[in-house]
């Protein structure tokens, strides 16, 4: 999707003088950004979160090599992530015990190779099929590996997993990778490298054929390609990067445990990729950042954060199947036509009603949670600094008004926005920027 629609703009930019530097400019900017982020977000929590985001980005991008690029829906991507983590932890422990002069920064490669190896093994079976059959096989393999992780205790360490000490390896430049900041930079470096490599992959003959197989695997056969081989290679390389992400996780937590294989982990990466937008290369990056942020922030604020997560996912599937990146890219032609201003009023109008609906829904969910889960603590609860009785009629009435009133207003605003959108698109069409 992305390449088809984004190329015209990219090509025009490439023809101008500065545009010629643009492809490199993006990478330089990304490097500077990654280096500078810890200077802005200094707290320990922020550093931890940035580290998790970096890992999540690699994992989500590796997942999108399957979902967005090749059209393979996997429910078991955590297998390669988890195995990458375990192999990295064992490699570190082994290197410490054998006193091998191996520095920590190359250890994620062990995870990557483990991910690659198991993807070569499992992919041989699963990529013989596509579509639903592939999805089901991936689920089965995830169950298989998940359950064997609890059986093979000597390798997987049972419930508590396997721990390690990342500081005991050969030191480079006097860094022992004890402090989180050093781990962050390790993750950031791998993140940038992985993003660059995975992007480069999309620009190769193989990468182009992945999209062709995604679009129409039957036709791909009649231009000389075996879709099964394309799927298999994509699966293997995707396992490689998932393994790297897993390796980084185990370094970050100094631990590998069975939770890394869990269905929740596989579900999370699907969610992040889809919410960010599987159709665009940057989509999973946005999704990984957002989902990691929400997971950490929401779980502090509410017990039922997963419910909000699910709602967000459903909303994305129903109203923005292109995800965040899809929503942003939709505006590309209108922005280039200079007609973005026509939409601002519509968006501003929509903001209020949407906020009303959101607050109303949150109120209902939280009151129900309170009454259901915390009934023992009494019916008084606190939200946004205000204490109220969850069993009295007033907050329920308020929530209802917000939901119904906000919903009605949102429909009106939506109608207005749709009209504005059509007019803005007409401008873009006139200028030949869209069809």
């Amino acid at each position, binding site marked *: *999707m992305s*390449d*088809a*629609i984004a*190329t*015209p703009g990219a*090509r025009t930019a490439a023809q101008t003088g500065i545009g010629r530097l643009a492809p490199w400019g993006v990478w330089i900017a990304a490097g500077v950004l990654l280096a500078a982020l810890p200077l802005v977000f200094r707290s320990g929590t922020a550093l931890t979160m940035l580290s998790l985001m970096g890992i999540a980005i690699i994992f989500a991008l590796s997942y999108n090599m399957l979902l967005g690029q090749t059209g393979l829906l996997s429910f078991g991507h955590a297998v390669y992530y988890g195995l990458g983590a375990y192999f990295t932890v064992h490699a570190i422990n082994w290197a410490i015990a054998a006193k091998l002069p191996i520095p920590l920064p190359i250890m994620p490669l062990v995870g990557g190779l483990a991910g690659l190896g198991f993807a070569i093994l499992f992919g041989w079976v699963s990529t013989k099929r596509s579509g639903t059959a592939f999805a089901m096989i991936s689920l089965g393999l995830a169950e298989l590996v998940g359950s064997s992780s609890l059986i093979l205790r000597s390798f997987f360490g049972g419930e508590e997993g396997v721990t390690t000490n990342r500081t005991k390896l050969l030191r480079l430049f006097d860094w022992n990778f004890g402090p989180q900041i050093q781990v962050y930079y390790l993750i950031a470096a791998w993140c940038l490298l992985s993003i660059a490599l995975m992007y*480069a*992959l999309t*620009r*190769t*003959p*193989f*990468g*182009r*054929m992945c*999209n*062709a197989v*995604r*679009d*129409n695997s*039957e*036709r*791909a*056969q*009649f*231009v*000389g*390609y*075996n879709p099964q*081989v*394309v799927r298999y*290679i994509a699966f293997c*390389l995707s396992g490689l990067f998932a393994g790297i992400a897993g390796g980084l996780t185990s370094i970050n937590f100094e631990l590998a445990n069975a939770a890394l294989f869990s269905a929740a982990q596989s579900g999370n990466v699907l969610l992040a990729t889809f919410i960010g937008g599987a*159709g665009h290369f940057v989509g999973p990056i946005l999704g990984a950042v957002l989902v990691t942020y929400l997971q950490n922030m929401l779980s502090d604020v509410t017990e039922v954060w997963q419910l909000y997560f699910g709602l967000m996912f459903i909303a994305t599937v129903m109203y923005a199947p292109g995800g965040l990146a899809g929503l942003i890219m939709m505006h590309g032609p209108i922005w280039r036509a200079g007609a973005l201003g026509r939409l601002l009023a519509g968006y501003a109008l929509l903001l209020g009603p949407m906020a009303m609906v959101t607050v109303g829904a949150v109120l209902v969910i939280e009151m129900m949670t309170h009454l259901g889960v915390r009934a023992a603590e009494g019916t008084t609860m606190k939200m946004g600094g205000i204490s109220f009785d969850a069993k009295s009629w007033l907050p329920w009435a308020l929530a209802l008004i917000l939901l119904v009133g906000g919903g009605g207003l949102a429909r009106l605003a939506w109608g207005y926005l749709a009209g504005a959108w059509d007019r803005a698109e007409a401008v873009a069409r006139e200028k030949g920027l869209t*069809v």
Partner: protein
Amino acid sequence: MNTPAPERGGARVAALEARGLRKNFGPAEIIRGVDLTVPRGERHAVIGPNGAGKSTLFNLISGLLAPSAGEIRLDGVPVNALPAYKINRRGLSRSFQVTNIFPKLSVWENVRCAVLWSKGEKYAFWRSVEANPEIAQRTQQVLSEINLSSRKDLPAGVLTYAEQRALEIGITMAGGANVILLDEPTAGMSHAETERAVALIRRISEGRTLLIVEHDMSVVFGLADRISVLVYGEIIASGTPAEIRGNAKVKEAYLGEEAH
């Protein structure tokens, strides 16, 4: 690529040959013993009423379906045990009756994907698709032949029907195959569009072997060197357009009802 035909037993080897070809779907016999020879460089049309098995015949020849019995030879080499992509690599390329393109890829990407294998790119994931300038040259060449250069950055799915049909032909010819199978390339086109499509087909089949299924009789009789008539899975007649026009069996089975 158009090397002279290798001599075998003194006779020129046909570009495409089917012998005793059969296809059953369960008890239903769709192709019931087809013998077909298409010499190199010939434009050969297959006509026949709906349900005669024309598309199935194409699916058998191109490797989408495996024959129940019989043999298919491409340049004298049996190909009926091969999967579609291997047959394609041996120089046989086909289009589809229902437009079969890569809808989300740009028009440029559609054609380029069809060029890649013929330029020896295989499954390379270690070099840029732009590393070999021949790929872009060939893509551009195909796009100008099918007259879609100005639409190259659009997603193929948004093209008009006639443009998608042209792209379908472009994808089919892009790999430089020597044997081209076109399945109803002008179906659903207006008169003017059909004329353009025929001119395009004439151009791209120059020096190649063409096997075409077509319902439009003016297209068939204007384009084909020879015509085979397929009725209920059997070829009842094969000959020049004049012979077919004069054939009583054909008139009875096909032309009599539909074309005149």
